[in-house]
């Protein structure tokens, strides 16, 4: 329900993402992944999505397994330390998802151009490779070869991209939507600024005064944010620096479930569609497990998860 703040319930915020829309998501390897939001998208059967993403493996693999994706602009999806994203790979191999490949810098520059309000930007990467030669749905709009009118350097022009919605998971925010982040920001900032609408899920809701005490942590001021949702453990089974580590046990279980469509359907029935909301999901993960992931206040990650502390 909408209030005079930007605070939304998860269910209401997810309803703002329509089937068929073009989205971008946060996430870098096993951190920053907006997975509580993605699970609710799957519960609400949002589908036919177009995604522009750099390396947001978790969100893309879950949505692929839920058969929610149609078109993807990407650079790299991999579960670091575990291997390929099997749901995504299988969906591509079975012809369900159309893919347009870029490099990390290439796709990020498309979002950067969108975030700056310019129609295109020159880059010095990707030329001469099959990323350049093989064109999928972007066809002639993928790249233009260009010679710099000032220096005569050869460059590639890439057009801006402006997704309908950016879905980001961050550390904390106030109810007005001032969003703060600890640690690396990956592509969160350019992704959010390129999008027409920005939805942010956070570990903590804090007073505006707390935000104003450390403005250097702010990644998005409220005027760039449309909705904020309070979702502790909202990145699980990925982690959040200074909050909790990634959950190796659950990642093992997830990866195992992605070996076939049938097995992933069982995973979805148990952990996503079979749970009414995120509290029920976290209850399934269990208190003991969640506590073992809790970040050490000095290091910012769980020493238990790094094999240091026995329980």
């Amino acid at each position, binding site marked *: 329900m909408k209030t005079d703040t930007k605070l939304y319930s998860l269910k209401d915020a997810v309803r703002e993402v329509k089937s068929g829309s073009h989205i971008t998501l946060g996430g*870098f*390897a*096993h*951190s*920053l992944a907006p997975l509580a939001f993605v699970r609710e998208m799957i519960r609400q059967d949002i589908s036919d999505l177009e995604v522009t993403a*750099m*390396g947001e493996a978790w969100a893309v693999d879950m949505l692929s397994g839920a058969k929610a994706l149609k078109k993807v602009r*990407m*650079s*790299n*999806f*991999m579960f*670091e*330390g575990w291997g*390929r*994203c099997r749901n995504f*790979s*299988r969906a*591509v*191999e079975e*012809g369900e998802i159309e*893919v347009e*490949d870029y*490099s*990390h*810098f*290439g796709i*990020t*520059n498309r979002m950067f151009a969108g975030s700056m309000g310019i129609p295109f930007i020159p880059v*010095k*990467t*990707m*030329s*001469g*490779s*099959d*990323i350049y*030669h*093989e064109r*999928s749905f972007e066809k002639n709009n993928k790249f233009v070869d260009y010679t710099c009118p000032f220096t005569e*350097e*050869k*460059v590639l022009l890439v057009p801006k991209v402006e997704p309908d919605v950016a879905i980001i998971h961050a550390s904390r925010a106030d109810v007005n939507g001032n969003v703060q982040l600890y*640690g*690396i*920001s*990956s*592509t*969160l*900032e*350019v992704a959010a600024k390129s999008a027409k609408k920005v939805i942010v899920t956070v570990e903590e809701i804090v007073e505006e005064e707390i935000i104003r005490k450390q403005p250097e942590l702010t990644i998005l001021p409220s005027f760039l944010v449309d909705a904020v949702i309070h979702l502790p453990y909202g990145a699980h089974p990925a*982690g959040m*620096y200074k909050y909790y*580590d990634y959950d190796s046990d659950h990642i093992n279980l997830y990866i195992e479930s992605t070996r076939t469509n049938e097995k992933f359907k069982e995973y979805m029935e148990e952990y996503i569609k079979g749970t009414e909301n995120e509290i029920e999901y976290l209850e399934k993960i269990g208190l003991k497990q969640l506590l073992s992931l809790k970040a050490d206040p000095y*290091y*910012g*990650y769980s020493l238990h998860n*790094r*094999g*240091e502390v026995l329980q």
Partner: protein
Amino acid sequence: MKQSVNNVITADEMMVFAASQLFKDGDVALVGTGLPMIAAYAAKQTHAPNAVLVFESGIMDAKASHMASGVGDFPLVHGAVKTSSLFDSLSLLQKGTINLGFLGAAEIDAYGNINSTVIGDYQTPKVRLPGSGGANDIASMAERTVILVKHQKRKFVEKLNYLTTPGYIDGAGSREKYGLPGQGPEKVITDLGVFYFDAATKRMSIESLHPQVSLEKVIEETGFEFQHIPEEIPVTEMPKPELLQTIRDLDPDKIYINK
């Protein structure tokens, strides 16, 4: 050399050592996790204390207390001098500030081109692989690049399924034609030897083979012909025992080497 179990160097350790020797003091390197990261830390602890490690996730000059499982992993964040964005890290690569990069490969050809995108046709792939990530950016833009790869016939191929990451593309002059700012791959380091690219043809050639590795074995595991094979093939230099110990101490739980 004493042949006690502890002094027998493994293929992983040879790769790490050979890679570490390519760091120059003061290099600003974009590294991934795994063997290149261990090599970078070994170089920093020995001949290149001023080398700086940047990770594409936005982590700069990391000083990890625990082994990281990936380039965005929290032990790299804690203790770094700056945490920033992927866009920031890769902009430094385009600018030329980051001058050294390391690459892995699912498939590599004689010109050092790499495939990490698909097996089969691009539009209807038999196997969809993870995709470029920062690899194409490193290979296109870093002044110097080094490729670390396991030497297997299915990886060392005459023709790639898809050219994700440029080496010398079609040979001499190709990189210039496409305007790629980096110099192209300097070395390929495998578990069998060290390889370079012939100046005239830009095709892969043998520089040295690791101890106990035969030429027959290398040819058997390579799906293309080397441009140049020295008549007397040098044996790859081995690390001194202290350095070998340093390398082992960097990964005591054998997460990346000797796993």
